[in-house]
């Protein structure tokens, strides 16, 4: 329909989003079209009614609930502050750091493992295990066992 274009312009004019040329074009059309003038009056009325409606404010009890949750989150984070500057370490650095630590730890454990084989006592524990379970121990098994023994010692 021919008037659709002008009705859309009427809607945009309400929002202050018409160009100067469009405003001129719309005014020329309105001068000759009673249908669009009636539509304009109705849109104006609805828009005035909408815009005169009051706005809602966040209720105090909701604000309290938000602040409580934020305080809880704050307190939970305080536990991490022992790692000074935790907040300021970028995530990538933390990941790379963890990876390096893991590699170093693995190295340290497998390195000391070579020594274990020549230390009496530790060796006994390994052979005792190999006898009862009848399996061939690999280097990896020993590392795992050492970790197990260490954690058991802590219990």
């Amino acid at each position, binding site marked *: 329909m021919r008037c659709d274009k002008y*009705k*859309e312009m009427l*809607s*945009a004019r309400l*929002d202050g*989003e018409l160009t100067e040329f469009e405003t001129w074009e719309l005014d020329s059309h309105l001068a000759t079209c009673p249908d669009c003038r009636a539509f304009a009056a*109705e*849109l104006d009325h*609805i*828009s005035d*009614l*909408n*815009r*005169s*409606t*009051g*706005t*809602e*404010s*966040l*209720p105090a*009890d*909701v*604000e309290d*609930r*938000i602040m409580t*949750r*934020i305080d809880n*989150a704050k307190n939970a*984070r305080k536990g991490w502050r022992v790692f000074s500057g935790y*907040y300021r370490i970028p995530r990538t650095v933390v990941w790379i750091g963890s990876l390096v630590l893991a590699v170093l730890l693995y190295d340290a454990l497998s390195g000391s493992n070579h020594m274990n084989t020549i230390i009496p006592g530790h060796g006994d524990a390994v052979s005792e295990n190999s006898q009862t379970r009848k399996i061939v121990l690999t280097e990896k098994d020993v590392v795992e066992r050492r970790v197990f023994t260490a954690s058991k010692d802590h219990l």
Partner: protein
Amino acid sequence: MDGDNSLTFTDVFNEYKDRTFDFAVKMLGDRDAAGDIAQEVFVRLYTKMTDHYRITDIKSWLFILTRNLCLNKIRDRCHEVPLSAVSDNPGDHSDRDRHRQIELRRALLALEPEYREALILREYQGFSYTEIAEILGTTVPAIRALLYRARCRLRETYRQTSFMG
């Protein structure tokens, strides 16, 4: 205040708490549900800010999140909005104006969510077409056409409800 890294959570909260809540109330017609959504929005904002995420446009971010949470709520909701849930905060108006405003709010709640959100952002929140396009993830010409269709639908629905009322 967008893109300003020196803003604290409290600055943003004080600036936008009422606006985001108002948007949610008008989207849902339900103050309790809108309160839950405001809570979720600001707790997430707090987490993002303390984790040092860079939010380039906080205003858009807040309204996009509020809008998404409202749409989820509308999708999950299997019942009609009770009319009593349409809160009235009419300002200084005569009974007749007040009655008309309530009728209009009902008509707004009866609209499809895509029309409703565009109208609320424009009519009540005063966002420009560019800002609405950003929040709804579309273009300015699409917003112009959407608002026109939304107003036509609101006009029809308002006529029906006010005749019936």
